[in-house]
C-alpha cells in the first residue's frame, strides 16, 4: 500500500516538469539504506526513502525533473562544493562546521541521539556517565561519534567507531561493546533486527537533518527553504514521515521553531544539543581527535620498541649462531632468515594470530609484538652478521692470542666494533618498524595509522589527519635518528 503512494509521487515527478528544464541532480548515498535512501528492491533503478520523496517534492515544486546521483556519505560535502549535484540530502546532520563550508537549508527533521544497551544492563547503564570505563560504539563521522569523543574526556568511556550501523549493535549483543549511541531512527531499525537489546528513550542530544548545496548556491538554497517551509505548513512533510514510520511529536515543535524564526537567520535553527562546530572542518575537529591519536601513537611506540627489542635480542642470537655455529645450526638459521625475510609479515601475523590459535591463543597485542619481532629479527640478524664479519681479522687474532674465549671475544671486542657498523641500518629498521607496525591493525590492534583512518573517515578528509599522522611518526623517529647519529659521531673518533 505504501508502494502505491510512492508510485504516485514518482508519477508526479516524471509528468509535471516543464519540457526543456534541466534536471535537478540530487545527491545521496543509497548505502545509507532505508528509511533515508535506498534502491527499490522491486526495481533497483529507482530509489525509495523519505529523503527520496522530499527530493522529488522539491524537484516537482521547482518544475524540474529529479535525477539521483550516488555519492558516498562521507564525500557529500566535498561533492557539494565540487558541484557534483544541485542539492544533497541523505540524513545529513546539521552542524556549524557544515554550515560554514556549504549552503545549508533549514532543518527538516529532528532526531534524538539515544543509548542502546543489552537488556540485562537496562538499569545499570542509563547515561554516558554510567558507562565510565566501558566501550561505547557508534557510526563514524556522525554527531554521535563527536559526542562519544567528548564523553571519552568527560565520562571516561572508550569510543569505538564503526563504518556501518549494523555491527555496533551486533557487537553489543556479543558483549564486545557495552552500549551504542546512535540516532533514534537507526536505533529503532536495529531494535527490530535484534532481540535482547533495549533503547533508553531519553535523548543524549538532539540533532537535525538538513539539505546542502554548493556554497555559492544560496539562491537555490533559499528556494529549497521556501519549499520546505511550505511542506511543513501544508502537511507534505508530515505525510512523508508518517509513511516511513518516522513521524513523532518532536517534528511539529521543530516546524514551529523553523516557521517562527527569521528566514534570514539560519543560525537560529542550528542544532540544539551539540556545541557549534563539533562536526566540521578538520582543524576544528583536531582537538577532539588529538587525545585518541596521541594514545594510538603510544601504542605504536610501545609496540615498536618492544618488537624491536625482541628483534635485536633474537637477531644477535641468530647472527652469533650464523657466525660461530656448526654447519647444521648455520643452515637452520639461514633458512629461518630467508623465510622470515622473504615472506610478507602480514601473512606471518595471520599465522601467529589465527593459525596458531589452536595451539596457543595469543592476545592481539602480544601476537603483534611477537610477529613483528620474529620478522624483524631476520633482518637484524643479517645486519649483525655482516657487521660482525666486517670486524678486521687482526682484532680477533689479538683477542685469541690473549686467551679470550670466543664468547668473550664476541662480547668484548667483536660486538662493540660491529655495533658501530650496524647502527645506521638498525636505526633505519627501527624507523621503518614504526610505520610497519601499522600492519598489526589486521589483528584488531588500534595504532596510529588505524586511528588516523578512523579520524579521516569521521571527518571525511585525509588532509589534516594524514599530516598529523606523519608528524606524529616523525616525532617518534627523529629523537631516535638523533641519538643514533650522536652515537656514531662519538664512535667515529675510534676509526683507525
Amino acid at each position, binding site marked *: 500500500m505504501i508502494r502505491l503512494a510512492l508510485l504516485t509521487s514518482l508519477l508526479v515527478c516524471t509528468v509535471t516538469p516543464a519540457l526543456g528544464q534541466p534536471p535537478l541532480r540530487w545527491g545521496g548515498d543509497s548505502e545509507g539504506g532505508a528509511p533515508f535512501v535506498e534502491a527499490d528492491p522491486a526495481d533497483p533503478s529507482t530509489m525509495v526513502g523519505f529523503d527520496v520523496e522530499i527530493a522529488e517534492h522539491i524537484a516537482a515544486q521547482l518544475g524540474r525533473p529529479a535525477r539521483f546521483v550516488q555519492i558516498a556519505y562521507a564525500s557529500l560535502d566535498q561533492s557539494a562544493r565540487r558541484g557534483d549535484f544541485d542539492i544533497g540530502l541523505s540524513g545529513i546532520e546539521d552542524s556549524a562546521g557544515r554550515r560554514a563550508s556549504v549552503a545549508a537549508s533549514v532543518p527538516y527533521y529532528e532526531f534524538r541521539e539515544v543509548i542502546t544497551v543489552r537488556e540485562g544492563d537496562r538499569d545499570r547503564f542509563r547515561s554516558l556517565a554510567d558507562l565510565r570505563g566501558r566501550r561505547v560504539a557508534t557510526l563514524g563521522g556522525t554527531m554521535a561519534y563527536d559526542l562519544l569523543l567528548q564523553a571519552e574526556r568527560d565520562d571516561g568511556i572508550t569510543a569505538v567507531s564503526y563504518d556501518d550501523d549494523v555491527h555496533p549493535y551486533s557487537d553489543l549483543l556479543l558483549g564486545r561493546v557495552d552500549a551504542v549511541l546512535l540516532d533514534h531512527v537507526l536505533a529503532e531499525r536495529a531494535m527490530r533486527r535484534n532481540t535482547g537489546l533495549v533503547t533508553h528513550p531519553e535523548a543524549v542530544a538532539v540533532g537535525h537533518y538538513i539539505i546542502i548545496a554548493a556554497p555559492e548556491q544560496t539562491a537555490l538554497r533559499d528556494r529549497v527553504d521556501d519549499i520546505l517551509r511550505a511542506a511543513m505548513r501544508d502537511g507534505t512533510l508530515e505525510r512523508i514521515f508518517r509513511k516511513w514510520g518516522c513521524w513523532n511529536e518532536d517534528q511539529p515543535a521543530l516546524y514551529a521553531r523553523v516557521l517562527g524564526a527569521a528566514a534570514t537567520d539560519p543560525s537560529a535553527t542550528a542544532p540544539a544539543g551539540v556545541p557549534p562546530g563539533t562536526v566540521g572542518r578538520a582543524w576544528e575537529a583536531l582537538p577532539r581527535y588529538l587525545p585518541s591519536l596521541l594514545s594510538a601513537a603510544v601504542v605504536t611506540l610501545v609496540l615498536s620498541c618492544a618488537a624491536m627489542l625482541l628483534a635485536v635480542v633474537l637477531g644477535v642470537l641468530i647472527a652469533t649462531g650464523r657466525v660461530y655455529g656448526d654447519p647444521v645450526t648455520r643452515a637452520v638459521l639461514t633458512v629461518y632468515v630467508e623465510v622470515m625475510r622473504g615472506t610478507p609479515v602480514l601473512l606471518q601475523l595471520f599465522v601467529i594470530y589465527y593459525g596458531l590459535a589452536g595451539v596457543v591463543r595469543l592476545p592481539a597485542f602480544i601476537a603483534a609484538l611477537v610477529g613483528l619481532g620474529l620478522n624483524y629479527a631476520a633482518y637484524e640478524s643479517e645486519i649483525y652478521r655482516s657487521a660482525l664479519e666486517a670486524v678486521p681479522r687482526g682484532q680477533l687474532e689479538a683477542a*685469541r692470542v690473549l686467551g679470550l674465549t670466543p664468547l668473550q671475544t664476541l662480547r668484548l671486542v667483536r660486538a662493540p666494533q660491529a655495533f658501530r657498523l650496524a647502527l645506521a641500518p638498525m636505526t633505519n629498521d627501527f624507523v621503518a618498524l614504526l610505520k610497519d607496525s601499522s600492519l598489526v591493525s589486521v589483528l584488531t590492534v588500534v595504532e596510529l595509522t588505524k586511528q588516523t583512518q578512523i579520524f579521516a573517515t569521521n571527518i571525511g578528509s585525509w588532509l589534516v589527519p594524514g599530516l598529523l599522522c606523519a608528524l606524529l611518526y616523525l616525532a617518534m623517529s627523529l629523537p631516535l635518528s638523533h641519538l643514533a647519529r650522536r652515537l656514531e659521531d662519538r664512535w667515529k673518533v675510534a676509526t683507525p
Partner: protein
Amino acid sequence: MSATLRVRGLRLWRGDRQILAGIDLDASPGEVVALMGLSGSGKTTILRILAGLERADAGDIQVPKAGMVFQYHYLFEHLTAMENVCLAPMYVQRQTRAQAEARAGELLGELGVGHRADALPRELSGGEAQRVAIARALAVDPPLLLLDEPTASLDPARRNDLGDALKALAASGRTLLLTSHDDDFVRDFASRVVILAGGRMVEQGDPRQVLEYAQHEETRELLQVERQRKLGR
C-alpha cells in the same frame, strides 16, 4: 705443559709457493731466540703457526701457551691503551680491575708510554702503539712469548729498554722467540739467532758468532757483510 718449544719439519705452501720447507726449531726457558731472514722469508708465518693462528701443512709442534706481539700492533681500536692492557688480565686471569690496572700502569711506565694510558690506539704514534702492544702481551705473562719485529718502530733508546726487559723476562724462566731485522739488537740481547732462507733454517748459534762470522752465503747476503766490509764497519 712445559715452557719448552719444539718444532720439527714444519712445512707450508701458499698456492704453489712453498713458504716453509721443513723448519726445525727448539727453545727452552731462559732463552731469547731471534729469527732473522730476508723480508718475506716466513718469519711472521712461523710465529703465527706457533700462536695457533695458522695451520701448517705438515710438521710436528710442541708449544706451550703463547702470547704474541704482532708486527702490526692490532690494538683493540675501541679501547684505550690502559684498557687494552687490562682486558686479558681481567677477563682471562680474573684479576680485579684495580690489580690489572696497577700492573698495566707499571708495564706502560717501564716501556715509556705511561703518559699515553688514556689514549685510543689511533691517537698513538707508531712506536707508542708498538710498546702498548708489548705491554698487553706481557701483562698476561705467558710461558712463551712471540714477538714479531718488536723493535721496528722503536728508537735506539727504547730498543735497549725493551731488550733489557726481555732479557729479564727470560732470566725469570720464560721462553722468548722474536723476529728482527736489527742485527745490533739481536747481537746485544738474543741468546741465540736462527737464520732463515728459502724456507729453511740455514744457520743458528750465538749471535756474536753467527752475525760476525757468517758461514753461509745466505746469511752473508742477508747481513750485507761484503758491503759493510767495504764501508769499513
